[in-house]
């Protein structure tokens, strides 16, 4: 399962013309995302002011998303160990709060494009105020395999679930 997915992601990156250049910043990731293969965008509103959403991101992201995970996958004829480091960055602001997630495969994956410091950008979340009590959340990230992270970020944004995603369930 994992080798197949790694192949798909690599193929997707190549198909998207990323063989020589991966986004080197969150802004480049935003610009690259529309129409990119296996990347989706989602937006929704939450009934919380931007300040509270930003505070949830600030509290939860470092605790939940700055870590290294190790997973093993065993199928007949193959045994794979993957060590993956994740890093989050929260950029608070009066008009917009941002959450960036980066990923760096430490073992088991060939890197086909230049990796920015901290890892490849895999998700960018922008929170902007709709009015004093509501905030619009715009997420850009992988369309497959990261469901648990999408759900966790929604929980932080709404304030209904402040739990951490089990990052071993990615892929």
């Amino acid at each position, binding site marked *: 399962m994992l080798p197949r997915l790694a192949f798909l992601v690599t193929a997707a990156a190549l198909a998207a013309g990323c063989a020589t250049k991966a986004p080197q910043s969150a802004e480049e990731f935003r610009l690259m995302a529309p129409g990119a293969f296996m990347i989706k965008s989602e937006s929704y509103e939450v009934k919380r002011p931007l300040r509270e959403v930003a505070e949830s991101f600030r509290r939860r992201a470092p605790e939940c998303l700055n870590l290294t995970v*190790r*997973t*093993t*996958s065993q199928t007949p004829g193959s045994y794979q160990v993957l060590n993956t480091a994740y890093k989050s960055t929260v950029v608070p602001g009066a008009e917009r709060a941002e959450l960036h997630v980066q990923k760096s495969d430490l073992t088991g994956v060939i890197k086909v494009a230049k990796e920015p410091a901290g890892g490849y950008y895999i998700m960018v979340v922008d929170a902007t105020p709709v009015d004093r009590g509501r905030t619009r959340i715009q997420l850009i990230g992988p369309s497959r395999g990261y469901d648990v992270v999408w759900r966790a970020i929604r*929980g932080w944004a709404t304030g209904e679930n402040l*739990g*951490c995603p*089990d990052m071993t*369930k990615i892929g």
Partner: protein
Amino acid sequence: MRAWALVLCGAGLLAGCGGTIRYAEVAEKNLHIRIETSSGSAFSSVKAALGVHAVDARCALKYEGTVELDRSQVEVGIPAGRLSYLVFEFASSGFLAARRGSIRHETLLRPRAGQGYDIRVSYRNDIYEVVIRERGSPGREIGRAGLAACISHAKE
């Protein structure tokens, strides 16, 4: 003699002692742990456990043992007045994909003498949370503190 050593070693491994030892608790049960785990799928399972480490003055860890969090409520006694490093581990496995992984929530805790702590450990649909509160009204939440907090405190 060597044969006996092999037999004892093998017996130890068979008893599940290969690297994990059962935590020898202190008498006063000061951690009251409520556990809710559900993998959310019939094709996978998740197990929770608590590893306890002693922390010395240089912030070095000494593993003391593990408590299986395999019931809805578990009471554990750890030494009061001493810094401990608690490692809550959620180990999941799938039946079909044979995929395994574990994720940890680690924190320092120095229990106060005579004080109890309520700990809520949850893992539902691949989202986990560990919340530690001092007992009392309303119950102060103890924030997560990594080893870096110990190291910076030790340097002061």
